[in-house]
């Protein structure tokens, strides 16, 4: 099953810790979004393999944009 990681808030992608194919554990920090000059880490919703990373560092994202897809 696939799970999408959605942007919980609008902001700028500061860091991307994952690459396609990598394995992640639930609650791993996968990305960091900067909003209102604060770094907000985004955590993996489930354990699985990264299927797709849809953003790169420096991108602006809106709330609910798909950031990455995890294959459970």
């Amino acid at each position, binding site marked *: 099953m696939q799970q999408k990681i959605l942007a*919980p*808030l609008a902001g700028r992608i500061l860091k991307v810790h994952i690459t396609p194919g990598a394995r992640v554990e639930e*609650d791993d920090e996968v990305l960091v979004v900067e*909003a*209102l000059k*604060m770094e*907000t880490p985004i*955590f993996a*919703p489930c354990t699985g393999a990264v299927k797709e990373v849809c953003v790169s560092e420096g991108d602006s994202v809106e709330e609910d944009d798909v950031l990455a897809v995890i294959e459970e």
Partner: protein
Amino acid sequence: MSETLTALFETTGFYHLAPGPILMWAIAFTLIYLAIRKQYEPLLLLPIGFGILLANLPLAGLMAPGEGLLWRFHHYGIQWEIIPPLIFLGLGALTDFRPLLANPRLIFLGAGAQGGVYVTFFAAVASGKFTLQQAATAGIIGGADGPTTIFLANKLAPEMLGWCAVAAYSYMAMVPIIQPPIMRLLTTVKERTIRMKKGRKVSDREALLFPLVATPAIILLVPASAPLIAMFMLGNLFRESRVVERLTHAAQNELLNIVTIFLGLSVGATMNAEAFLKPMAIFIFFLGLFAFMISTATGILLAKFLNLFTRDKLNPLLGAAGVSAVPMAARVVHKVGAEADKKNYLLMYAMGPNVAGVIGTVIAAGIFLTLLGLAR
């Protein structure tokens, strides 16, 4: 010969040094230290600190009525009520009302967190040490809004302006220290982990209409709030219209930065030793802190109260964002929420009560002005 030397010495400031001004230098250097070393609101505390130093240099005459340089900045900038509204123009251009419009009930939390303003007002009156006007000015510190505090102090109690501004900006810098213990005390871990229901999407048209509708509504309701609300909403209209990028940018950056210089310097310059080394200063600091803490608490308690009646529970931490220290209070809410549940992203929800709090504080100031301004 020695007489000439003595006469020459007497023309220097050194001859006129007194303990009072030197104590004020110590305060000035403390603020400058906090601004540089600890980065406590450096944009304001640095010029304020330097202004205090300048105002306490004997014979310099920088605050001499009618001629001193800093006196002119203060007179035309603050006494003429020009600078605080211009700051509000910039803040309006920086403010995004979408988080509020997406969850309109959050506006109650912005109002709830003004509780400290009123509680402190009554406490100050009860203490018997303050006039009604002074009590209102001390209370407004609880709104955690610098320009509004200065605006109200100038109108109601100019003698308190300097200390109130320093207290307001200092506590704003200390939001991350003052608020979290109160937030943890008044909420359970379970409440802190409440995840907010997603707000609806706010269209660009709604965001554009907001300043156009809110301006007449608020000003008709509380006419005394007009100077601040008018400029705030104009800035917001610039932003949301998306056709005057240049004006939006100028209001957010160049203009805001320029008036910040004059605001800080002028506020600092009002603090000369004779006028400000009084026991009242300590009271103001104490009352300001009290106001701040009560506002945090009333915001949270109101959120818990609202939860008794609604199915979609509010995370009560959001109430603490009702104090209008934007965006520090919202960040604190986010962080305290994330301690309990790291996947709970409260930041954008917290911006709702946060911007509502700005409006709430201006309205509170307007009400004080209406009720107490005439009596003075």
